[in-house]
């Protein structure tokens, strides 16, 4: 039975992640899962994402750790070099700040610095995103740092199917992958094939076709771009929404082909706009499509401040569908 004819399931991104972990551990005895509270003795994760794994695969392959992110990442690196495929959880992205040395100076560089002798096939799962009033130290999007770091891939899914498919690929990838889960959208149900398999890293998805403007985005902002596209359709503007899925390496071909078609591009992300990942995409588009654009490439991201607590500020901090729609209208008006 092929995927097309199979009846689709409803699943949240979280359930899809859980399904991928079960499948990966089942299929490959080298896959390990660990992090704070991930084992069933600790409730299978504070969010329950890893629930059931330790009961099924044992306490040696699925381990809760002390609160010590450097030692989590260190253990992941060592075990990976010894032949395992660890999936290490950093509970929230802000906590990755205490493990940067391990990730940047070690995981990302060991293959290169060893001239190819070492390999570090780890997956770092982490959750983030504003919207829950967890304020300045619990909702940052730092993917830009890692996209700028040679030797680590950055994956940020937006749909349940992608959560599963990309996680399966990340785990089997021979190199380190940062896998970002977005807290606003990860618990929203969506369609997924019961036999959803791996989805290749580095390939974007056209979430919606359009002809007037290209919205390039990923992670939680895919939803906002789709909402903007719906609004724009009402205003007679046809927006193409590209979900990058993998931020680094990003799918230049798909983006450039789309922007060449529409002549207009807006890059949208939740991370702070200033020196944010959107700049790379905008800079590349203007360079490769110089003279073919009808308007400058726009970038939308968070303002230059910490994530604020008050709901009204947090809402204003996040790029909203209407911000995107307005930017698109402006571009359309320019040429």
């Amino acid at each position, binding site marked *: 039975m092929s995927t097309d004819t199979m009846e689709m399931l409803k699943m949240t991104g979280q359930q899809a992640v859980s399904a991928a972990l079960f499948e990966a551990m089942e299929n490959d005895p080298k896959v390990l899962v660990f992090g704070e509270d991930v084992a069933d003795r600790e409730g299978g994760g504070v969010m329950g994402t890893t629930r059931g794994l330790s009961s099924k695969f044992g306490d040696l392959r699925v381990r809760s750790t002390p609160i010590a992110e450097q030692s989590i990442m260190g253990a992941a690196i060592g075990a990976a070099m010894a032949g395992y495929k660890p999936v290490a959880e950093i509970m929230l992205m802000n906590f990755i700040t*205490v493990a940067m040395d391990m990730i940047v100076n070690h995981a990302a560089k060991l293959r290169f610095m060893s001239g190819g002798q070492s390999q570090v096939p780890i997956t770092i799962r982490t959750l983030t995103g504003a919207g829950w009033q967890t304020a300045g130290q619990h909702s940052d999007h730092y993917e830009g740092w890692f996209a700028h770091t040679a030797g680590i891939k950055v994956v940020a899914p937006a749909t349940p199917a992608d959560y599963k498919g990309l996680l399966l690929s990340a785990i089997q990838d021979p190199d380190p992958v940062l896998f970002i889960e977005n807290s606003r959208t990860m618990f929203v149900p969506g369609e997924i094939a019961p036999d959803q398999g791996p989805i290749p890293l580095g390939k974007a998805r056209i979430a919606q076709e359009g002809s007037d403007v290209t919205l390039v985005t990923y992670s939680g902002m895919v939803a906002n771009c789709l909402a903007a596209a719906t609004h724009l359709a009402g205003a007679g503007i046809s927006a193409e929404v590209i979900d990058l899925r993998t931020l680094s390496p990003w799918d230049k071909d798909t983006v450039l082909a789309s922007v060449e078609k529409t002549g207009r591009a807006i890059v949208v992300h939740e991370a702070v706009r200033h020196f944010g990942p959107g700049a790379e995409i905008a800079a590349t588009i203007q360079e490769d499509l110089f003279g073919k654009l009808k308007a400058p490439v726009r970038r939308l991201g968070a303002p230059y401040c910490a994530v604020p607590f008050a709901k009204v500020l947090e809402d204003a901090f996040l790029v909203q569908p209407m911000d995107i729609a307005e930017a698109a209208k402006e571009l359309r008006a320019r040429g």
Partner: protein
Amino acid sequence: MAQTPSNAQSNTASPDAAAQLDIFRRMLRVERNDDATRAQIRRGRITAPYYSARGQEVIPSTMSHLMTDEDVICTIYRGIHDMVAKDMPLRPLWAEICGRVDGTCKGKGGPMHLTHPETGVMVTTGIVGSSMPIANGFGWASLLDGSKRVTVAYFGDGASNIGAFHEAMNLASVWRLPVIFVCQNNGFAEHTRYENGTSVDLISKRAIGYGMPGYTVDGNDPFDMYAHAHVAIERARNGEGPTLLECKTFRFMGHVFGDDDSYMTKEEKAAAMAIDPLPRFRQKLVDSGVATEEQLAELQTKIEAEVQDAIDFAFNSAPPPLEELRRDVFAEEIPA
């Protein structure tokens, strides 16, 4: 309790009647405030995550009683009890929790980042372990100022396993900083039981590795707390350097509001709650004649009125204006 590892001396100072009453006042203020907070959350009027410290009242109440107004604290997400015990005013506290412009942080920090320098609440961090290295900076400033100001760093048992703990303890000892490291050991780090994350039976033993005195204290007993806090604070004030206090306690409400406690047994929770330090100490005050029932009832009424006033104040305060996103990023406002 007071299990003391080999490098520690024994401590005997004891709170007099006034001290006991003051400690109880702080405990009750903490508890009444916590109760009201949970009530408001249940009613859906507060949406932020809340880390109740119900059960841990004795620790900061005793510490705060022994601190002066100049002394400062650096605390954590589970730290509202530390602030309330330090006599932080409740109006700006509540307004902050509700994300209002009259909040101590104008609604921008929220409950995990409450700050109130006037009462010595210098830093509240949501990152496990991070209160400690920053506390050292205040300690260094005391030496530079030539002041007797003491800094207390609060943190949990789980935090004692993270790198920042180690670096901070070592630096404080090498520099003989007037900092007291107060570990509120409630037996759990989120869902992880103490012994599954921590390699030593008593966190106070880690002090040995820093040439620092360390004590394990019954953090639910104001007398034991007082005796050890007294020694630690005197030591710091006299320029003799830092102390590690491991204060054993229990959090009655789980890690975060809504936590289902599935990782602990009903029995252990019931056992811990059966020795709830608040009613126990209350009873003791009455039994020993330190206070009458009437006095304590009056105290409670007064505190409840203060809490209610703060709630009313908070919900009448406006949300912050959007310009606040451009303010306080730097000293100078970011242009629109």
